[in-house]
Every structure is written in structure tokens, then in C-alpha cells.
């Protein structure tokens, strides 16, 4: 398993990414409190500069509240396409250091540099190189955590971050290292909530055991923990509390695929809401599949918990599909196996294994016949999709869509990049 060989893992997180990109493009705003998002009547703050944070503005805060706390702030609409463009340059820099890059979002990634130490120097030096290159080549700052696993690297990053204070931002160290023999003094004083997987419900159970810090968890007998929160979660938490985490850095060597994802302004715990989002994303994926004249073989679901733990699942149904309902049904099935009570931050739906849609040959199903009372279900879906595509060509994406997406007279269809900061953000 390679568990014993010590790995060198970096966690790189851009500092106030969206805001920093805006400052890059609008240097005249430097030093002023800047807020991205929160402009619409129900808009929510997507990011705040350190100056704005000093006034108590933070992401996911309602725009109205942010304006009250910091009336002098400059409020900007988000420009998703621009952030993606900058992100691609940053990720390229990571990729030039090691092929083992696992992006977590536009502004965050894990890098496994174990194999690069000989060529590039110790991991903290590599971290410093990355910071310097990102600054020189893109003009942005980032913070880097260095450790022997992903869990500790990510925690370390937090301690390297700049902090907002009433007298202005205080720069962080930029690079924070957790040495293998210094895990306990680093980890154990942290509040237990710092561990991945400790959401509100787990927290309540732990509190009953008298747990306050990570160290408290580590000192608990593992069976007390598994009795309280179940064998899988208990064992996993106990391992994390001892700083053990052997998950590999998994580079996205994505096959040719089409996907969409949504980051929520506020973590979602309502499964119904997530299922509705799945319908929305699946509809958008299917739309693109049909426009490209392809069908997908494998359906993927990606879910990021409020703890940033990201899980992905995939299913390969017997037949390739370009139907949004079909994709949504599979994605929803995968979601049903995932606990959402601790809050979901991001959800994504995709398909891979794309192939040209050819002459249609379809294995019919005994059970559809039973359910629908007729064997023509698939053909009907195809006719329906063709009609939907034509209507959207003429009247736009929001002209028609799955009924579950209807909201006060319009269809809340997925428009890439437009949803997170708009007035719909708190839907």
C-alpha cells in the first residue's frame, strides 16, 4: 500500500481567489474592501477581500447583511469564466512541478511531490517555489500546507493563510509544514471539528463523550468511538485523529467527458434540494451530449461535503444515454448512498465514455414495460428530447425544461457560471 514509505504532499490554496482575480483586473481597488457576489436582492457573498473580512463580511453571507456591515465595500458580480481561465494557468504551474495534481476546485489542489524531492529539493522548498512562480506568473498569492498526507497538508494550509484584522490584513507564513514527528503537538490541540467528517450530528455525539479536541478523540478507545458513531466513521475518525490518512493524490486524468457542477453558496442538507439540483445538472449535461451528437456510457456523481471531503461515484448502465432523466435517475441512485446530513458544498454530474450516437439498437426492459404499461418509453423520451432541443434553439435554455425546475413561471435551467452569485443563489 505504500503506507510506510513517507510521502510528501502539498495542499495549495489560493488566497481569496475570486477577489484577488478581480483586484488583478482592477488594481485601483487594491486596499479597499471588495466583495464578489451579493449584489442581487437575494444574492450571497461568494468571496470577500481581507479588508472586507475585517468588517465581519464572509462568504455565504447574505448580500444585504454584508452591505450593512461594510457599506463602503465595492460589490462586484462574479465572472466565472475569468476565474476558470486564471485557474487553468495556476493548475498548469502545479502540473509543471508534478503530474500528480488533484484539483479540488478552481482555487485549490493537492500535489504529491514525493517523487520530485530528489530533483527539486525538500517539499517546503518546492512549496516556496510554487508560491513564487504563482506570484511571478499570475500575480496572485497562495498558501501551501506541507505534510506526509492530504489530511494534514490541508490543515497546515489553514495556519499559513493571511488573516484579517481591524488594522488590515496580516500576512501568513505562506508555507506551513507539519513534520512527521510533530503531528501530535500540531493536531491534538485543534478542536475536534477540524477533522473531516465531523459535522453537526457527529459533533453532538462526540460532545456526549466529553470530546473537545482532536487529542481527546485520539485518546479515546476506538471501540468507544465506534459504538458512538458507527464502525466505519469511528475507525476513520480515530485514524484521522492520530494523523493517519493514506488516500492517494488522484490526478484528474478525466476521460473524454462532459460534466457540470454547482457550488452552493450555503451548504445543503436537504436531500430533495440536492435531487432537484441533480435534475438540473443532468439536464444540462444531456443537452450538451445531444448538441455534440454523442451519447455517454458512464454516469458520474461528485459530492463535496461541508468538510471538503469529496466523494465520487460512477455507474455504467447497460446502454449509452443522452437523456437527462436517465442520467438524473442514475445520479440520484448514487446520491442515495451518500450521507448529506452534515451539509453538501458542491454537487456535480457528468458522463464519460462518449461515443457517436449511431443507429439505435436498444435492449428493451421487462420492468419498464411493467411500469409504463408500454414498451415505447425510450422512443417517447427521444421524441421529447428532440422537441425540447428545437424549442431551446429558438427560445433559449430557460424556455423549457423538467417540471421540477419550474419556479414562478420560468424554468431554472443550468447556465454555466451564472448561478452562484445571481439572485437565485439562496434558492
Amino acid at each position: 500500500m505504500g503506507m510506510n514509505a513517507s510521502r510528501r504532499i502539498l495542499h495549495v490554496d489560493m488566497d481569496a481567489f475570486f477577489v484577488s482575480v478581480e483586484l488583478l483586473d482592477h488594481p485601483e481597488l487594491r486596499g479597499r474592501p471588495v466583495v464578489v457576489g451579493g449584489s442581487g436582492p437575494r444574492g450571497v457573498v461568494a468571496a470577500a477581500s481581507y479588508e472586507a473580512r475585517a468588517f465581519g463580511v464572509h462568504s455565504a453571507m447574505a448580500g444585504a447583511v454584508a452591505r450593512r456591515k461594510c457599506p463602503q465595500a465595492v460589490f462586484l458580480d462574479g465572472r466565472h469564466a475569468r476565474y476558470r481561465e486564471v485557474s487553468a494557468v495556476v493548475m498548469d504551474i502545479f502540473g509543471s512541478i508534478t503530474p500528480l495534481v488533484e484539483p479540488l476546485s478552481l482555487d485549490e489542489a493537492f500535489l504529491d511531490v514525493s517523487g520530485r524531492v530528489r530533483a527539486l529539493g525538500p517539499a517546503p522548498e518546492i512549496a516556496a517555489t510554487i508560491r513564487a512562480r504563482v506570484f511571478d506568473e499570475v500575480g496572485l498569492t497562495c498558501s501551501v500546507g506541507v505534510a506526509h498526507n492530504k489530511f494534514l497538508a490541508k490543515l497546515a494550509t489553514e495556519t499559513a493563510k493571511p488573516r484579517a484584522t481591524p488594522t488590515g490584513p496580516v500576512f501568513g507564513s505562506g508555507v506551513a509544514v507539519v513534520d512527521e514527528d510533530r503531528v501530535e503537538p500540531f493536531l491534538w490541540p485543534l478542536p475536534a471539528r477540524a477533522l473531516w467528517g465531523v459535522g453537526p450530528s457527529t459533533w453532538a455525539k462526540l460532545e456526549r463523550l466529553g470530546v473537545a479536541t482532536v487529542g481527546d478523540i485520539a485518546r479515546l478507545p476506538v471501540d468507544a468511538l465506534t459504538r458512538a458513531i458507527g464502525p466505519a466513521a469511528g475507525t476513520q475518525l480515530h485514524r484521522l485523529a492520530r494523523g493517519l490518512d493514506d488516500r492517494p493524490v488522484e490526478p484528474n486524468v478525466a476521460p473524454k467527458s462532459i460534466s457540470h457542477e454547482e457550488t452552493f453558496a450555503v451548504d445543503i442538507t436537504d436531500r430533495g434540494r440536492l435531487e432537484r439540483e441533480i435534475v438540473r445538472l443532468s439536464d444540462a449535461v444531456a443537452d450538451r451530449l445531444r448538441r455534440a451528437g454523442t451519447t455517454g456510457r458512464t454516469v458520474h456523481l461528485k459530492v463535496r461535503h461541508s468538510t471538503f471531503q469529496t466523494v465520487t461515484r460512477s455507474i455504467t448502465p447497460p446502454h449509452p444515454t443522452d437523456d437527462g432523466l436517465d442520467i438524473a435517475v442514475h445520479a440520484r441512485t448514487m446520491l442515495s448512498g451518500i450521507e448529506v446530513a452534515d451539509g453538501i458544498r458542491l454537487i456535480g454530474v457528468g458522463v464519460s465514455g462518449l461515443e457517436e450516437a449511431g443507429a439505435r439498437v436498444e435492449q428493451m426492459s421487462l420492468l419498464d414495460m411493467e411500469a409504463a404499461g408500454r414498451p415505447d418509453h425510450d422512443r417517447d423520451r427521444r421524441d421529447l428530447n428532440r422537441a425540447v432541443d428545437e424549442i431551446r434553439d429558438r427560445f433559449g435554455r430557460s424556455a423549457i425544461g423538467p417540471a421540477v425546475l419550474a419556479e414562478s413561471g420560468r424554468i431554472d435551467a443550468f447556465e454555466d457560471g451564472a448561478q452562484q452569485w445571481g439572485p437565485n443563489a439562496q434558492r
Partner: protein
Amino acid sequence: MKFRCERDVLVDGLSTATRAVSSRGGALPVLSGLRVHLEGDQLRLTGSDLDLTITVDLTVAGDTDGEVVIPAKLAVDIVKALEPGAVLFETEGDEAKISGGRSEFSVNLIPAEEFPQLTAPSAESATIDAAEFADGLRQVVSAASNDDSRPILTGVLLAPEGTGLRLVSTDSYRLAVRDLPGATLLREGQTVLVPSRALNEVVRALGTAEKLSVVLDEREASFRVDGVRLTTRLIDGAFPNYRGLIPQSQPNRLVIGRGPLIDAVRRVKLMAREATPVRLTMREGSVELVAITQDIGQAHEELDAHYSGAELTVAFNPEFLLTGLEVTPGDEVSLETVDSLKPALLRSTESADFLYLLMPVRVS
């Protein structure tokens, strides 16, 4: 812990228990291991992925009792690779020493306290004829789905039928139903849905055994044969109403030798590439099989057969058709159809204990 055991006996035991060990790793690293428990001369090997648990009891020459968890796949590979003869297994601190002939391995152990406590279901056990049960399972497990997105279809339904037991599975494209008259396993009205993956392992473990002992409770099923016990979680949920799918009368009936049809489907299938179907055209006195794959080529074969009904062409997934023919007993089969879009019913002309219902492929 310390014991001595014949290599072949140990390899068998380790391999069997390892079959429950998930190759995907999963949330609990300890589940990539096997628990090895020795008490006196009784060695118990346990592998589990929390859904399926396989326990193997072996008699060995025990020296010192103990309990450890060893990496499963590695242990199998090591013991398998040793020279034939006695294998010595001995633990020292957090290592296990495995030696045989002049080879010696030391393997880092996995902390045993993390291994889940697994309990066997505690209901009354029933005994069933092993050969007949294995035969029935083999016929139905291949029609179960392996698509985890529809968990219910990955199971085999065990239900009472008359005075016997009925096994049912469907992946929604085909349905297999086998009756075992006289086999009693269930309470009246009791039905259970057992993961087909576990039943595959049961078939494998049955070998030439005569009797199989089965314990069923609300959540788990446990199968015990010789020194091997398989415990599996049951699937929760309602199995589709399969009775409504089985047609009562079909206007068209093809009767044909099973062996010749299997051979013909295998040949023609070579040209059914990229999910294209095999087409069967049935008419008085014959059936014609055709497979055409664009840009690759085609295959064609005609067989003599008895056919009553209107001339009809139906397309099938060749794999599904072949599986059905292979698990249907007897030398002669009947294929009953309505039209090219309705399910076809495949049965032996000699026995009413088994049926296989197959949905056609539509070509448009």
C-alpha cells in the same frame, strides 16, 4: 500465535476467506486483511467487506493461541508460492513469519483491534440438499444485475412456492425462475432477497458437499457447508412483481435442439459486435440467425426446427440469449413469442421447473 499447516489446506482456506475481501479497499484499511484466530488446533480465517463475510475453520497443528490480522492478498500469494509441504505461521510483535521449505517471509500485521466484530445471524438453521440448491442458483444468478444503482435487481429472491422453494432473479432484461419442489427453507410467507454476489460464492463453496445449512434472519443470511460459513447482508426492498411479467399464452412457438442452437448462436455472435443483436427469423420448419455489424461484416446460419405461428423476426442480445440457453436444462427447448417487441419465453420441453424470459432488442 504459532501453528503448522499443510500448504494446500492453508492456501484453500486463505483463498476462500479472501473472496469476501473487497479489492476496492474502502473506508476501513483493516478490511484488506484477514483475521486469523487460533485456539488449540482450531484455526479460523475471516474475511469481510461488511456486506459479505466468509469464515473458514481449519484444523491445524496449533502451538500458541492468538489473533492477528494479516494482509489478505499478500498472505494468499505467499503461501501459494511456497514449496509443497508444511507451512509454519508464527507471529512476533507486529510481524507474522510465514515459512515453508527454505523460504521465509515476514509480513507486517494490521492492527487487529480495528477489525469489525462480526456476528452470525441467530435464527434456527434449515438444511437443504446442496447439489439441487447449487444447480438452481447456477441457473438464476446469471440473470441478476450487477448494476449497483439498482440494488434490488442485484439480488436473488428466495420465496416459498407451493410446498417448495422458488429462486427468482432479473436484471430487467431477462428473468430467470427456478422451482425447487420439496425444498423447505422459509417460513410461510417469508421471502428474502440475497445478493447474487454472495450466492455465487455459495455455489463455489458448495463443491461436492451434500448438505447445506442455512440461517435466515431479518437482516442476514448465513450459509454453512463443511468448514466454511458465508454470511451476507440481505437486500432491503420490494422485488419487482415478476409474476405479472410471465405471459400466460404466446401465439408463436419454436421447438429446437438446445445444443445445435447454442452452437449456432456462438458462431453468429462473432459478427454481432458493438452491441448489435442477433436476429432470429422463425418460419415453418426453420429458424434463421443473422448478425450484421456495420463496417465489419455479417454472419448467417439456418437451422431446422419446429415452428407454429406467423413468420416473425425477433432480435436479441446474443449474450443474454446464450446465457438463457446454457442454463435451461434438457436437450430440447421451446421459445415462445408474441411479436418483435414483447418478451420471449424460453423453457425446456422436458421440465417445468425452470423458465427464462428474455426481452428483445429493438432495432430502429
